[in-house]
Structure formats: C-alpha cells, structure tokens
C-alpha cells in the first residue's frame, strides 16, 4: 500500500487499535490533520491546551491499561506537552505523544515554532524519536508502542518534521507485526531461586508486612496480590499510586502509608520484621527518613525495573520481573510448602495492629457547622457506593480523597503521584470518561488546582463529557498553607487564592451546571442531584473549613513512627 507520511501516521494508529487521539492542530501537523479529516480511523478529541491533551491521554491510559495517544504541533505545542510527559513518566504511564516539527531542511535554523523537542523531552520520556524519512515511520510507531507498553511502561514521543508528512510524497506501507529490539529486553519472569528465598522469609516472619504500589496496577496483578495476601493473612498497605489493587474495604488493608498515611500502616512498617515490597520505588514521601525506614525488617523487593531496586533503600532479596508472574510463582511455592501459617505469632502481630488501628487516626470533627473536606469525600463515597472513577488534582483534597475514598478495584483512582501536577484532574477525567462512557466519573479538585487547566471545560462541553467536579474550596493552596502553618510560623506567604471567580457562573458560561454548597446538611442531597444528571457536567463548588489540615502527617526527615496526629488525637 502506497501512503504519504501523514496517512501512515493515521494508519499506524489505526493498526495499533487506537480509539482516541487527544490533540490540537498547528502548522507543523497540518498534513496529519488533513489525513485525519479524511479518515474514520479513530476519534479525535480537540482539547484547549496541549497539556490537557497529554493529561487526557494519560487518564485514558491509567483507567484502561491501554496506551494513550496525543498529537501536538511543534514549538509551543511541544513545550506545552512537556508537563504532561513528565507527569506520565514519573507514574510510568504508557503514552504515545506525536509532535510536529519544522521541515528537516530548516531544523536548527531557529525557524518559526521550532524547538529542540527531542532534546527537551529526553529526560521526561522513556524514549523518543525524531523521524527524518517517511519510510521509517511505520517501524518507528511499532517501536514506540512496544517500548511504551512493555517492561516498566512510560511515555514515548515521536517528533515528525513537516516534510516527512508531505501528502505528495508516498512510500510503501506495511505495519510490522512484531518487533524485537536488541537493546531492550525487559524481564519476562522472576528468578525462581530468589522467589524461594523470599517465600522462606515471609513464611517464617513473625511480623510480616506487604507494601505495594503502582507497579501492581500497571502489571495487572491485583488478583494475584489479593489471593496471596488473603492466603497468608498478611497485613497490607499501599502507596498513593497503588490504591485499588487490593480491596480498600478489606480488614487486612491498613490504609495508605507514608507522609499522610494511617497510623496503623506507618507503625506496622516501622515494626515489621519482613517487608514484602511489590511494584514500588521507595519514594521519599513514602519512606520518610531513610535510615529509620523499617529498621528491623528484611526487605524483599519485586519490580520490573532493576534500577528501582536498592536505589533508595538497601534490599535483601531483589526479584526483577513482572509482578504478575512473580506473585503466581510466589503463591505456588507457598502452597507447595503446605504452609499453614504461624498462628500464634500472627495473632500477636494482628493484635498489635488492631491496637494501632483503634486510635482512629482519620477521625475528624463530624459535628462541625462548616463542611469538613473529609466529610465531603465520605459523602461522595457513600452516595456513589465506592464505584467512581475518581481523578484528582494535587494537594490536600488529593490526600483526603486517598484517605477517605475506598477503592475496591484497580484503575479507579487516577492522580498525579510522582510529579504532583496541579491541573491534572480535569483533563485526565476527560480521558477517563471517554474510555468509560456511561460510568460515573468525578474529579476532586481544589480552587487553586482547577484553575490551572480550567479551559478544558470547553472540551467537556464539545464532547458531552458528564464529569462531576467536586471542588473543595478553602480559599487557600491548602497544602502550602498547611506547611506554612506548621513549619513557617503561620506566615501564609502567597498561599491565599485571591480574586477567585464565581465558579457557578464560570461553569454556566461554559454551558455546564454549577452548584454552590456551603452547609454540611446540603451536601448529600446536592451530590445525589448532581450525579442524577447523567448527561451534564456538574461543577460543585464546596466551601470547606479553610484551615483544616491533613493528618496524620510525617514531617520531612522523620521516620514512620514520628507521626503528627490531628491535635485532639496527638500522642500523649
């Protein structure tokens, strides 16, 4: 088949089974947009800013496991996409971002809308390509999808100069069926000897603990994880990125760990004697002070990425491999040993955990006349039966949502964990809603975060995306204010968001429904009403207690056992 470069771009995406492309046209991608105009290969979603395109593709990917695709023009189109790429890279999300580039003969001449896109995106992509010949396009797309979706997933950028998509130059096209790269061979299974060592440690442990992260979700290993944890009656905690891969409502689940983790999860980490870490990267927000991290534990680490192992924390039993197959082997070996459990010790350990749990570290003032942000999330949880696809922006509302919305399934909790990108919530919700038509999708946000990508309300209107935005409006950049209160003697330097818009009018001006909610008793009926509007985007501006803080909290440079609890529950 003879195709132009522009047609190859469209055809390759179709051959990869792409459903949605999130994009924004411009000079360098006009040939591609013309080919899209003539094709029915996929649905194109016009965003209002390239950052929104990449976040939307990201939300699509996180909620489905399939790669997300974005298309942007050269220069500012590409630089606007960088935040989205870095966000996806930090959280290992498979994306294909296609950027236009100025024609090859003028590359390097500071041409109009020229920027060194592969140079700029090199540190925030898993890999990137500059394609200088239309004959190389098909294979490059195959490579890009292969690299993005295998091993530890990540975003891949393909930069295509305008002349390479010239409609008057055609080349023969055949999409490669498979591809093998001599320089890229991710592990296919874990080392059995290492898994045996790990099984021995866990079966003999007196105080075992499981700590899992986003890798279990990317590795589609929720079922295996749940089976193992249930079979061995292990306590489990999860990172912000790992929530949902083990049922959040189960009694063996101790809640999230880390800086804003629960008392019981962090104390169990501190006191455990064997730690089984699965698909995690020992992020500083999780570990706290490194030399006080799990001081008595032998650490087992299962991860597909060898460079995650012993990067921050020394590991005793490293296992490199896909978590799904490693966990299968692990459980098989446990069953072969006809291990029946260490009842007495496990009972003592569980008793200890229940003592920690009985502190009810997430309790808050339920009789407040103001809406507490925790109450707003609990209400959201209750009226949606915990079945939401919930995206989040970054800050206090994100932590409250992670603490109070219990996810029983993976790929339901979509947020920017590693990069902490304010503005992620709304555009990512667009991708989630498109991937799951008819399903309830909500975005939890703050009045500071939401304004960073507010223009996407127009995209939601154009594409009829009935997202429910729950804005926890405290008039502050809440997390910044909290740190200023705790560590800067309440000097609230530039953390008050002045001159806020009237959010109801703002939503209405974009053609959506807006609600102001100020009293606790109004919350539930209003949320029910909002979710009953199945074909409308509803923007709920929830005025919450402006000075509520997120607790528990481990201050920077402290160990897991040094938690601040909410003042009324502070340790004696």
């Amino acid at each position: 088949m003879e195709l132009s470069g522009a047609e190859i771009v469209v055809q390759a995406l179709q051959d990869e089974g792409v459903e949605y492309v999130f994009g924004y046209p411009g000079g360098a991608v006009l040939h591609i947009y013309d080919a899209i105009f003539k094709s029915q290969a996929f649905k194109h979603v016009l965003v209002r800013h390239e950052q929104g395109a990449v976040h939307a593709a990201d939300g699509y990917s996180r909620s489905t496991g399939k790669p997300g695709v974005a298309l942007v023009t050269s220069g500012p189109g590409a630089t606007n996409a960088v935040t989205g790429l870095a966000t996806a890279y930090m959280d290992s999300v498979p994306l294909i971002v296609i950027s236009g580039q100025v024609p090859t003969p003028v590359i390097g001449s500071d041409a109009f809308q020229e920027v060194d896109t592969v140079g700029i995106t090199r540190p925030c992509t898993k890999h990137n390509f500059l394609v200088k010949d239309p004959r190389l396009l098909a294979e490059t797309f195959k490579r890009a999808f292969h690299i993005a979706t295998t091993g530890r997933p990540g975003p891949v950028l393909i930069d295509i100069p305008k002349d390479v998509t010239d409609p008057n130059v055609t080349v023969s096209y055949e999409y490669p069926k498979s591809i093998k790269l001599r320089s890229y061979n991710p592990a296919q299974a874990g080392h059995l000897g290492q898994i045996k060592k790990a099984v021995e440690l866990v079966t003999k442990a007196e105080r075992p603990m499981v700590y899992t992260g986003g890798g279990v979700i990317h590795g589609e290993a929720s079922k295996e994880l749940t089976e193992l944890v249930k079979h061995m009656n292990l306590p489990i905690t999860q990172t912000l990125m790992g929530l949902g891969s083990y049922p959040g409502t189960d009694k063996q689940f101790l809640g999230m760990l880390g800086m804003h983790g629960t008392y019981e999860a962090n104390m169990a980490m501190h006191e455990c004697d064997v730690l089984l870490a699965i698909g995690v990267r020992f992020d500083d927000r999780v570990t706290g002070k490194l030399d006080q991290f799990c001081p008595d534990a032998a650490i087992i680490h299962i991860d597909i990425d060898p460079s995650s192992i012993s990067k921050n924390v020394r590991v005793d039993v490293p296992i490199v491999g896909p978590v799904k197959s490693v966990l299968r082997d692990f459980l098989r070996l446990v069953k072969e040993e006809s291990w029946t459990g260490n009842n007495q010790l496990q009972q003592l350990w569980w008793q200890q955990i229940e003592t920690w749990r009985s502190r009810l570290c997430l309790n808050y003032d339920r009789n407040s006349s103001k809406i507490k942000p925790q109450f707003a999330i609990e209400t959201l949880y209750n009226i949606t039966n915990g079945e939401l696809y919930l995206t989040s922006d970054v800050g206090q509302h994100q932590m409250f949502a992670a603490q109070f919305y219990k996810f029983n399934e993976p790929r339901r909790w979509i947020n920017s964990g590693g990069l902490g990108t304010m503005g992620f919530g709304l555009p990512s919700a667009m991708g989630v809603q498109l991937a799951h038509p008819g399903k309830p999708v909500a975005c939890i946000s703050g009045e500071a975060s939401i304004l960073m990508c507010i223009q996407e309300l127009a995209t939601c209107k154009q594409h009829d995306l009935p997202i429910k935005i729950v804005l926890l409006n405290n008039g502050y950049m809440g997390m910044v204010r909290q740190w200023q209160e705790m560590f800067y003697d309440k000097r609230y330097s530039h953390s008050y968001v002045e001159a806020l818009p009237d959010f109801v009018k703002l939503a209405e001006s974009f053609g959506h429904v807006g609600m102001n909610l100020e009293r606790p008793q109004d919350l539930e009926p209003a949320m029910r009403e909002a979710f009953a509007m199945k074909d409308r985007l509803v923007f709920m501006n929830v005025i919450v207690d402006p000075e509520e803080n997120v607790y528990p909290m481990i201050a920077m440079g402290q160990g897991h056992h040094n938690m601040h609890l909410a003042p009324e529950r502070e340790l004696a």
Partner: protein
Amino acid sequence: MRHIISLLLENESGALSRVAGLFSARGYNIEALTVAPTDDPTMSRMTLVTAGREEVIEQIKKQLNKLIDVVKLQDLADGPHIERELMLIKVRAEEDNRPELMRLSEIFRARIIDVTETSYVIEVTGTGDKLDAFVAAIPNGLITEVVRSGPSGISRGAKGLTI
C-alpha cells in the same frame, strides 16, 4: 572508587546525549568519556570513567542499561583489563631544549610527529598515569598545549563485549 565502564550503543543520533544527560540529570560524576563507531557501523563503543561509592556505581550501571539505546554494558573494573589513552602535546622546542625533549620522548616511547623551527608536537600513548608522568617530566614553561583523548578500555582474555 574509580570505575571504567564499556558500553555498546546503538549508533543513533542522540545516543550520546542520552548518556551525557543521564549523568547530569542524576548528579553522577563523569571523569572521561570517549565514543566512536565500531567495526559494526550500527553500533558505537563508549568508554566512560566515573567514580563513586559502590551503591552509586551500581545505580549508574542500572540506569545506563535502562537507556533504550544501550545494547550492552561491561564494568571493566570487575576483571583484568587494559586501558590506553592518547595524548598530543605541543611544546616549545628551541635549539637548546631539543636534546632533552627527544630523550624524554624516547624514554616514554613517545613520537615526535610535527616539527617547526620552534616547536614539536609529541604523541604519547599509555595509561593515564604514564601521560601524567610525561607531562610532569617536560621542563617548566615549555608546554604550549595538551590534548588527551580520555581512556579507551578493553578486557583481557579471549572474551569480548559483543552482541
């Protein structure tokens, strides 16, 4: 500790900047780096000298291996190996200095490869230590210019770094 790491890289544009970018982005120390195509024109061979605690070196190797363009990696410090570095050195060589410079060149098995009325260019090959010693042996004030290639390394024995 000093480590000398050999890499086979895809001979793609940008492969060198991926390696260099990795070192700057992660704050790793890089002492020397040489790179050129091999007998297989699709691949380049890089020799990279770095230093750091063992945990850091371990991370450097893992991060390098993670780059898509890195085909193979070997830490030459893991076994017996040979290192050679090329130096070109331009010296002031007037009548009264010439015998001494020629003697030194002979002792260090260096070669004089350019001569003018007032200068020599001398080529020396060897380990970094030998080149340091040669530079130190040149009488004060005679050195005009020094160019060093950075070391290239290869393991001893029959086994090679191939794919």
